[in-house]
């Protein structure tokens, strides 16, 4: 059953060639085989087997089952699952057990998806390499000397190693799409507000969205749309109905940003393959046109001002009193806060809290925080303008392939700048997908991204299926 999509798995189950128990056992064996990659923080083996058995019994008895029966998923360690631990890969949430289940996950469970375990990630989803975790590094699934990407690095590797059908990650600035690109799998982030954030440990609340990683477009689309829809528990979730059918058929139009596609620092293989894909699209009768986007160099600065500001506020809740870790040295109330937070957070998280505190502090608030919010509007308007005349924006997922583990650890700015092509979607709230494109001469995978206007997930899924199937 290796590498099969859910349709095929369910067909085999219906024909009596496969049981849900066998599906779960297959993935557990794959997890066992990939232990050196440090993908899972915790595997829910016994529980998954029991759920599989219960499903098999239901199927045997001819009872009705949810539409996702036979599917096995991994969840990033920032998604709450009642009765299970969740830590955001941080010492500060040591021993924390979820008291409820994230709405998006609940919608999958209601359709009989089985959770096999929780995956490693960068602490509080802050990172681009899965190197900032209290549980250590998760290396790339294709080349273990290189980074998996981040922050949903292990989520991407969990799919790449066939340890589950799909993985749930979160995407604040590219955290689903970039590791998907680095590991040669699909990663999709929905429109801001399309999927509920209730039960997701917050990083940057006006950016965060749950996303799906998988090997098959049908699965990614199905899971994403099953999670989508308004949730009374998340007032930023949209009340727009979830559209599952694409309205565009046949020829569509793509825009590409000249400065991106012809940038001197874009990796040679990525440039070549991206141009080849655009040529192909054109030869198939689609419109491919050049657009200008002079705001490009302001994306990453605006993104880091706003996300760190939101993070410094969101992470204020870790006080050592109500949950998680408390410092042994906390002998006063001030030290309960200060020592707990200093010992509990890793260095990247502290760096971002400090920066966020700075941009929000009196005297600098307008110059940095308000300024970045204004730039966010300019960027959003400029993107909106592109979609007035084009269906999709096409651009590389990353300017480079996965780097060697440890290569950029002393240079946060270098790492931050590598987010340039993914943050566009989060700054503007639009949906985006990374599809596996090709590999460089050393076999390192990279992806191509498609973005579209808000709430056009169905169109994005349809065009991705078209791209992948031919």
């Amino acid at each position, binding site marked *: 059953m290796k590498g099969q999509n859910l349709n095929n798995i369910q067909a085999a189950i219906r024909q009596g060639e496969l049981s849900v128990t066998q599906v779960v056992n297959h993935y557990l064996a794959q997890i066992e085989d990939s232990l050196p990659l440090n993908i899972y923080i915790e595997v829910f083996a016994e529980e998954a087997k029991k759920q599989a058995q219960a499903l098999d019994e239901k199927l045997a008895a001819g009872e009705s089952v949810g539409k996702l029966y036979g599917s096995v998923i991994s969840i990033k360690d920032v998604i709450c699952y009642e009765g299970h631990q969740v830590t955001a890969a941080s010492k500060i949430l040591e021993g924390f057990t979820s*008291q409820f289940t994230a709405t998006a996950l609940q919608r999958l469970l209601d359709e009989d998806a089985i959770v096999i375990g929780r995956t490693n990630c960068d602490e509080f989803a802050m990172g681009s390499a899965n190197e900032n975790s209290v549980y250590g590094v998760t290396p790339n699934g294709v080349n273990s000397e290189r980074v998996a990407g981040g922050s949903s690095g292990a989520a991407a590797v969990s799919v790449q190693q066939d340890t589950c059908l799909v993985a749930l990650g979160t995407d604040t600035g590219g955290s689903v799409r970039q590791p998907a690109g680095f590991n040669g799998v699909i990663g999709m982030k929905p429109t801001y*507000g399309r999927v509920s954030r209730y039960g997701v440990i917050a990083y940057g609340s006006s950016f965060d969205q749950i996303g799906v990683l998988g090997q098959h477009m049908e699965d990614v689309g199905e899971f994403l749309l099953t999670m989508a829809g308004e949730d009374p528990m998340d007032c930023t979730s*949209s009340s727009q109905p979830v559209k599952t059918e694409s309205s565009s058929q046949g020829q569509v139009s793509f825009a590409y940003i000249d400065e991106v596609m012809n940038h001197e620092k874009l990796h040679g293989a990525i440039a070549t393959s991206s141009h080849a894909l655009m040529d192909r699209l054109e030869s198939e009768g689609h419109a491919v046109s050049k657009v200008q986007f002079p705001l490009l160099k302001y994306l990453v600065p605006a993104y880091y001002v706003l996300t760190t500001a939101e993070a410094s506020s969101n992470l204020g809740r870790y006080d050592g*009193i109500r949950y998680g870790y408390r410092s042994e040295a906390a002998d006063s109330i001030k030290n309960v*806060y200060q020592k707990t937070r200093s010992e509990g957070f890793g260095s990247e998280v*502290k760096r971002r809290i400090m*920066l966020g505190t700075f941009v929000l502090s009196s005297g600098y608030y307008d110059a940095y925080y308000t300024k970045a*919010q204004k*730039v966010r509007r300019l960027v959003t308007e400029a993107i909106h303008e592109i979609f007035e005349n084009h269906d999709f924006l096409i651009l590389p997922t990353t300017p480079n392939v996965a780097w060697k583990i440890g290569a950029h650890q002393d240079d946060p*700015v270098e790492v931050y700048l590598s987010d340039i092509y993914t943050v566009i979607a989060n700054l503007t709230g639009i949906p985006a997908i990374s599809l596996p494109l090709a590999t460089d001469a050393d076999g390192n995978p990279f992806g191509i991204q498609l973005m579209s206007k808000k709430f056009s997930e169905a169109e994005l899924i349809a065009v991705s299926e078209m791209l992948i199937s031919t």
Partner: protein
Amino acid sequence: MKIDDALISKLERLSRLELAVEERAQIKVDLNNILQMVDTLEELNTDDVEPLIYMNEEHKAPREDIISNELPHEAAIANAPVSSESGHFLVPKVMDK
């Protein structure tokens, strides 16, 4: 904009963090590098631009004022690092006698 030791101390205080000496030095260097990158935003004229604050600008009707989604007391206290048998969060003594 340059971040100096006094500002680092202020930020530590505001964010309830206590950095080790080496950590402080590193963060000072990093923050200055990051701010150098961020300062490019100054080049953009945003005089007549409204800040974008909410990513979902749909109108949301307030819900009925009914208490919902409560946690039982034991569940609420279950994750506390230190709690009393009577079911309270415990912190070091705050007030003198």
